[in-house]
């Protein structure tokens, strides 16, 4: 079936490809806008749970009504979804089952029940694989008339769900926002966070059911969680996060379809992989929360600390009035050695804070100024710790050594005022101006 579908998708004119991409994108966006709230409330796996428990709902509705009409099926699935949310919370709250375990118990049991129910339905074709993978490739084959336009049915359903979700979010924006970030505050302010929770769960269930047929459970889960998690790495405000989630969801669909055609493989699966890939890109390269920027930030901080330590060491040597000057090799070893030490010393020389006379190092006037600031910060902090925190003398060097890099001149000024213009540190050394 898959092979036939995929070959159709390639062989047919590109309007079908466009329809498939549009269907995927719309459904992905519908899932992703809700996903933003799931991710923020740390309930992502609820999306997974609900999209699994849709199955028994569908099966039960079919057994009761013996028809394929959409109304009862939708109702059954939504009830099953809500039941999952309700049971999970009840088990957690009243029977003190850990939250994740209660979710795991509920949705896997319901899923097992669903599989059993479906095997009881005689004469119904049930493609188990279809549950996971959906049949997005076949979307253009089933169309509905919308005005003068002939749309794939799955696209029409997706548009409706996206519309419902958008309207609900726009109308109840501030309520959703508040209960996403602080449910307790929301409740005290008179927005029932519990009601908002179940409203969100209802929307998730409706979206999951509607998307289920077209894209399968795997893509529903992927699109509920992954684009929102990606957007969460990129922006800080809720509005942009929701919009970006939708955009990333849509982009994953298009990208996934292109890749699926290229590699001649399953479309829904590839869309999930594409969403995961975009998440991976965000993990690495997000400007503020990405691994790369975190590493860069850490490296820059480490370099700054090393430079400060070098300057401080040279200054203290000068202060002792010793004749001996440090050789650059010794200086590097003294601060831990390695590449970072080498780089720190080199950058100090490049900025002309330290000059090199033969083998030994010498502070330049600018370097001496910078070092004085640093040593001043260090000794002021030592004084502060002794006077205000009552730390013993042999305990103040280490904390001051850590803090000295962060005390700017303003802070130094207020420290000095607080310390009654003290001009010696607790060890009796002068605090430089």
């Amino acid at each position, binding site marked *: 079936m*898959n*092979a036939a579908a995929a070959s159709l998708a390639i062989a047919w004119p590109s309007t079908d490809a466009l329809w498939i991409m549009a269907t995927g994108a719309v459904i992905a966006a519908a899932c992703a806008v809700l996903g933003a709230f799931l*991710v923020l409330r*740390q*309930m*992502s*796996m609820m*999306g*997974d749970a609900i999209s*699994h428990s849709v199955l028994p709902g569908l099966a039960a509705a079919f057994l009761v009504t013996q028809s394929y009409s959409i109304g009862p099926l939708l109702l059954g699935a939504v009830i099953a979804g809500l039941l999952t949310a309700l049971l999970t919370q009840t*088990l957690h709250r*009243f*029977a*003190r*089952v*850990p939250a*994740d*375990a209660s*979710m*795991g*118990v509920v949705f*896997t*049991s319901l*899923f*097992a*029940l669903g*599989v*059993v129910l479906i*095997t009881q339905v005689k004469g119904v074709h049930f493609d*188990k*694989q279809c549950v*996971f*993978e959906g049949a997005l490739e076949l979307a253009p084959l089933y169309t509905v008339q919308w005005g003068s336009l002939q749309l794939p049915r799955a696209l029409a359903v997706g548009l409706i769900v996206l519309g419902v979700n958008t309207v609900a979010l726009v109308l109840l924006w501030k309520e959703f926002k508040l209960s996403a970030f602080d449910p307790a505050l929301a409740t005290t302010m008179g927005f029932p966070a519990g009601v908002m929770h179940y409203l969100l769960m209802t929307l998730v269930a409706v979206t999951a059911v509607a998307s289920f047929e077209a894209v399968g459970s*795997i*893509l529903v*889960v*992927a699109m509920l*969680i*992954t684009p*929102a*998690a990606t957007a*969460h*790495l990129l922006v800080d405000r809720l509005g942009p996060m929701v919009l970006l989630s939708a955009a990333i969801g849509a982009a994953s669909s298009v990208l996934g379809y292109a890749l*699926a055609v290229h*590699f*001649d*493989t*399953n479309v829904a*699966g*590839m869309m*999930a*992989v594409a*969403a*995961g*890939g975009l*998440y991976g890109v965000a*993990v690495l390269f997000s400007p503020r929360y*990405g*691994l790369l920027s*975190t590493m860069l930030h850490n490296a820059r901080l480490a370099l700054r600390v090393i430079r400060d330590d070098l300057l401080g060491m040279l200054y203290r040597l000068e202060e002792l009035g010793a004749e001996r000057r440090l050789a650059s090799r010794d200086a590097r070893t003294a601060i831990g050695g390695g590449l970072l030490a080498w780089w720190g010393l080199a950058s100090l020389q490049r900025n002309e804070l330290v000059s090199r006379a033969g083998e030994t190092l010498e502070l330049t006037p600018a370097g001496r100024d910078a070092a004085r600031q640093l040593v001043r910060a260090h000794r002021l902090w030592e004084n502060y710790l002794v006077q205000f925190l009552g730390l013993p003398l042999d305990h103040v060097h280490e904390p001051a050594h850590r803090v000295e890099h962060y005390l700017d001149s303003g802070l130094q000024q207020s420290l000095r005022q607080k310390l009654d213009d003290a001009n010696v540190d607790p060890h009796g050394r002068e605090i430089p101006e």
Partner: protein
Amino acid sequence: MIALSLSMKVTLGAALLGGVAGVVGAFAVLRGRSLVGDMLSHAALPGVVLAFMLTGSRQLAALSVGALATGLAAIGLMTLVVRWTRTKEDAAIGVMLSSFFGLGVVLLSRATRSTTGGNSAGLNSFLFGEPGNMLNSDLLLLAGVGTAALLIVTLLFKEFKLVAFDADFAASQGWPATRLDLAMMALVAVVTIIGLPMVGVVLMAAMIIVPAATARMWTHRLHTLLLLAAAIGVFAGVVGSRYGRGVPAGPAIVLAAAAMFAASLLLAPQQGLLARFMHTVRLQRRVAQDHLLRSLYELAEPQPQETPAIDFESLQADRRWRPARLRRLLEKNQQQGLVTLSGGVVTMTPVGLRAAAEATRRHRLWELYMMRVAGAAADHVDRSADDVEHLLPAAVVLELEAELEADPKLAFAAPRVPPSPHEIRAGEGDR
């Protein structure tokens, strides 16, 4: 090899799997990692397909190695993003689950196409579970892995126990907590993957979670928990695979486990809903009894007598009791010889007076304590004393008494009840 019938093999396999999954699942549940099992079983798919594509064989051992590789990769990536980025654990699990599973579906679709169908049927069993395909070698593998997992749990019992309950403490004591944690998760991974061909992706997660969550309701001790989870797993496996009556074995096993979970939910001695309901009812009764006694005492207080008599109406008005409830309560008290009822008059017996005095004393001691120590105002202490008086153990009452001995308000009368620090108004108390 002993010749076993297929149904015997399936039962044996299901029992083995249930037992081992119960044991390792206990650690997953205790560590708050229940859904990691779900993620693992999904993340195993690409590994299975890759192993198949590379080796061309459908040997369970080879496929399991592949599954283990991608499963561990998913755990590793999840840990990485949780540790280093803003993504929380739930979202990380979801992302890894769906991305890896998507990759698995993609690869599966490629594999199916390149080998012209048929051949990959064995791979589909990893998705949905086909216990009917079980071979003797599969059973041996299951037994081998299960024994190894149990051996590791036995050898590292103390270490696992420490990490499972307090990983930070374990780390502070110098144990390699992270590595032990990973070892635990690796055990979960291995067992999950071995079980996949039997029960399938979604239901394998249930095998990890449900027996452990069920056992957790019955005990607070780790070794009991492990034994119980194993027993529940074995039992679910046997019942589900033998008495399924046409229901596929995988879902039947899970439903058997779920039924035990539901039963435990109701009946477990401390956490069970029934026990907790009973506890609430008992507490409510005790509170009502204390309130009744205090009402009686306070109504009798203005004219002290040996056996004070209070009329029913004023008693009912004092706390706005529902008449029927008050009558039932009084009748019970009559049986215990605390009061006698005749017409509309309630007469306290000496024993009843004594008990009423005790209840009132507890209330007033706490009120005085709140005023003295917590600095609460006289008109604020009544309510807070109402919350606490029923739960004050005798030792605390003695302590309060000793502490408040010097208080001038504690001019102890015969039954040693201090006078109320505030005005007593009828109908002000809550029911």
